C-alpha cells in the first residue's frame, strides 16, 4: 500500500524521503506494530510537524530514521532516503557518521538526556570529535561558541559545569547547541518542550526557529501539542496507531482538516481567546498496537463511522494538492462536517 505523495517543497529539493516504513517489535505478547507503513517527503529547510498521541509511532519512526532503532531490535521494512542514500541499508559505521553530523536529534527531557558525570562542554566536544579530527582545544572553543549561539550566558564558564548545575531550559539549549554544532541538514526535535516550564517552552521553540533560519536546515517537530505546530510548522503529519492519517500544509490541517482524528485533536486544544464551556476530548484511548482494530484503526473512537470503516483499511489518498487523508468519508462530507461541527477559530 505504498502511496506516492507529492508535498509542497519550499526549497524544491527533497532532503528526506520515507517510503512505506514499517517498524515492528516482537514482544512476548505479540508483534507490536509501532510504525505500520508510513510514507512522506521532507524538503530542505522545511519544518514538518508530527502530531499524534503517545504510542502513535511518531517517536519510533524518527528514532528509526536516525538509526537509533536498528534491525537488531525490530523488524524494519521500507525505505528511508536521506540526501539520496537509503540509510536503512547502510553499514552501521556509515550510518554512525551521518548521525549527529547530517541529522541530529534532541529529546524530551534534557536533564536525563545528558550524561550526569561529564561536563556539558566536554559532551559537545565529544560530538565534534566523533565526526572530525580536531584538537581538543579547538573543539572546546567550538563547543563554547555553540553554547553562545543558543543564548547561554557566560558560555565559557557554563561549558565547564555539569548538567545538574543547569536549569531545564538552559540544558535544552545546551542539547540544541550539541545537536547543531556540526551544522546538520536535519534536526529532529522529539517533544523538545514537553518537560519544560510553559514560559521556557516558547523560548526554546523560537530559538529553534531562529537557528533554522541561520543554519538553513530542515526541522521535524514531533509533539502532541497542535498549538506548537500551528505556530512553527510548514507541513503537518498526523499519526494514529502507527499510520499517517492526515498530511497537509499547516493551513490545510488547521482550517480544512480532512480526518476525524485531527478534528478530535483540534477540539481538545484549550483556548483562552474564546468562550468554551469545556474541552471536548476524543472518546476512548489509543488502541493496542498488537491487536490493532480491523479496518480503520480509529473507527472504534470515531463518531462518524459508517459501513466500511470496521472492515476496510482506508488508504492515504491525496484529495487536494498536497493534502491527503486516510478516511472513507467523501471529501464533500468531510468539508461539510468540518465546517458545521468542528470548532476552530482563526
Amino acid at each position, binding site marked *: 500500500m505504498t502511496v506516492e505523495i507529492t508535498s509542497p517543497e519550499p526549497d524544491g529539493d527533497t532532503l528526506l524521503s520515507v517510503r512505506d516504513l514499517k517498524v515492528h517489535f516482537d514482544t512476548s505478547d505479540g508483534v507490536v506494530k509501532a510504525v505500520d507503513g508510513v510514507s512522506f517527503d521532507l524538503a530542505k529547510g522545511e519544518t514538518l510537524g508530527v502530531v499524534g498521541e503517545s504510542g502513535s509511532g511518531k517517536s519510533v519512526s524518527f528514532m528509526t530514521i536516525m538509526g537509533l532503532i536498528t534491525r537488531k531490535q525490530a523488524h524494519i521494512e521500507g525505505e528511508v532516503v536521506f540526501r539520496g542514500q537509503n540509510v536503512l541499508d547502510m553499514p552501521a559505521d556509515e550510518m554512525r557518521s551521518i*548521525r549527529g553530523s547530517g541529522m541530529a536529534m534532541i529529546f524530551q527531557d534534557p536533564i536525563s538526556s545528558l550524561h550526569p558525570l561529564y561536563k556539558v562542554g566536554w559532551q559537545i566536544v565529544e560530538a565534534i570529535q566523533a565526526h572530525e579530527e580536531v584538537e581538543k582545544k579547538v573543539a572546546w572553543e567550538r563547543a563554547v561558541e555553540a553554547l553562545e549561539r543558543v543564548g547561554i550566558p557566560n558560555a565559557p564558564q557554563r561549558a565547564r559545569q*555539569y548538567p545538574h548545575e543547569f536549569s531545564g531550559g538552559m540544558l535544552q539549549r545546551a542539547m540544541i547547541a550539541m*545537536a547543531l554544532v556540526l551544522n546538520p541538514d536535519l534536526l529532529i526535535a522529539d517533544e523538545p518542550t514537553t518537560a519544560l516550564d510553559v514560559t521556557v517552552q516558547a523560548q526554546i521553540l523560537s530559538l529553534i526557529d531562529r537557528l533554522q533560519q541561520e543554519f538553513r536546515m530542515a526541522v521535524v517537530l514531533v509533539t502532541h501539542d497542535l498549538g506548537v505546530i500551528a505556530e512553527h510548522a510548514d507541513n503537518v503529519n498526523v499519526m494514529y496507531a502507527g499510520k499517517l492519517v492526515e498530511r497537509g500544509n499547516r493551513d490545510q490541517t488547521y482550517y480544512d482538516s480532512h480526518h476525524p482524528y485531527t478534528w478530535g485533536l483540534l477540539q481538545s486544544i484549550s483556548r483562552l481567546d474564546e468562550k468554551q464551556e469545556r474541552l471536548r476530548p476524543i472518546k476512548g484511548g489509543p488502541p493496542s498496537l498488537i491487536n490493532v482494530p480491523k479496518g480503520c484503526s480509529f473507527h472504534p473512537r470515531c463518531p462518524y463511522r459508517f459501513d466500511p470503516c470496521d472492515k476496510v483499511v482506508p488508504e492515504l489518498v491525496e484529495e487536494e494538492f498536497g493534502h491527503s487523508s486516510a478516511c472513507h468519508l467523501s471529501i464533500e462530507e468531510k468539508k461539510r462536517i468540518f465546517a458545521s461541527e468542528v470548532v476552530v477559530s482563526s
Partner: protein
Amino acid sequence: MLRYIVRRLMWVGLVVIIITMLTFLIFYVIPPTDPAISFAGKNQGPEVLALIRKRFGLDQPVYVQYGRFVKHLFLGDEYGWPGFGFSYASQSPIRGELFKRLGITLQLAVGGAIAWLIIGIPIGIVSALKRRSLTDRAAMGFALFGVSAPVFWLGLMALYIFWYRLHLLPGTGYIGFGVSPWQWFTHWIMPWLVLALLFAAFYARMVRGNMIEAMSEDYIRTARAKGLSERRVITRHAMRSSLTPVVTMFGLDFGGLIGGAIVTESVFNLRGLGSWVVDAVFSGDIPIVIAVTMFGAITITLLNLFVDVIYAFLDPRVRYS
C-alpha cells in the same frame, strides 16, 4: 573539601575511642576466662594468680586499666609503638606478630581483590551487553554458584581437586616471596581465587544490573544520536556510570577483609589476622582480640573516608560540606 576531610578524621578518632572502650569493657569486665588463669594455667595456687594479677595490673579498677591501655596505645610500651601489649598465651609481645600476620592478610586481601575485580567486572559487563544470551545465562549461573557456595566447602574442594587429585597446585601454607617468588605465587593462587569467587559473583551481578540500567538511560540514546561508536558509548558513557558505585562497595568489602578473611585463612592454613583472632577468642587471649579489633576498626573507618573522598571526585553531584 579539606575541612570535610579534617572533620571526618576527627570522627574516625572518636569511633576508634568508642570501639576501644567497648572491646575493653567486653573482654576485661566480663571476660570469657580469667586472664590470670589463661596466663598461668589452671593448676596454680591463689598466691601465684594474685601475683600475676598484680603484675598485669588486673587488680586495679577498670578505668585505671583502660587508661594504661590507651597510654600504651598512643605512646608505645616496652615493645615499641603502638603498644598493643603482651599475649597471655604465647607470652610474647603482640606488636611484632600483629605486623607479621597483617602482612599475610594484606597479601590475601589485595590478591583476592584484584582477582575478583578482574573476574567480576568483565563478566557483569559482558552479561549485560549480551543480555538473555547463552553467555549471560552461563555467567549468571556462575554468579549464583559463587554466591551460594560456602567458602570452607569451596576451599576444601579446590584443595582436593587441584592439589590432592591433579597435583597442579601446592597445598596449604605460606611461602615467603623472598624464599621463592614462583612458589609464593603458586601457593597464593587457590586462596586468592577461593576468596575472590564469592565477591566476583556479587560484583558480576551488581555490575550487570548497573550496566543494564545505564544502557537504558536517555543519555545513552543521546550518545548514540551524536554519532559515537558503540564501543565509545559503552566504555565512556555506560561503564562510567555503572562502575562508579562499585568504588563504594569495593571500599567496604576490602576493609572487611583486613579484619581477617577467617574462613579462607583457616582452610589454607594461612597465619593471618583472622585465624589468629579466632584462636585468641577461644583461649581468652584478650590483648590479641583487642589489638585486631582496633586495627580492623581503624582500617574500615579510614577506608570509608577514603571511598567518600574518591566518590566526590567521581560523581560531581556529590558535594560534602
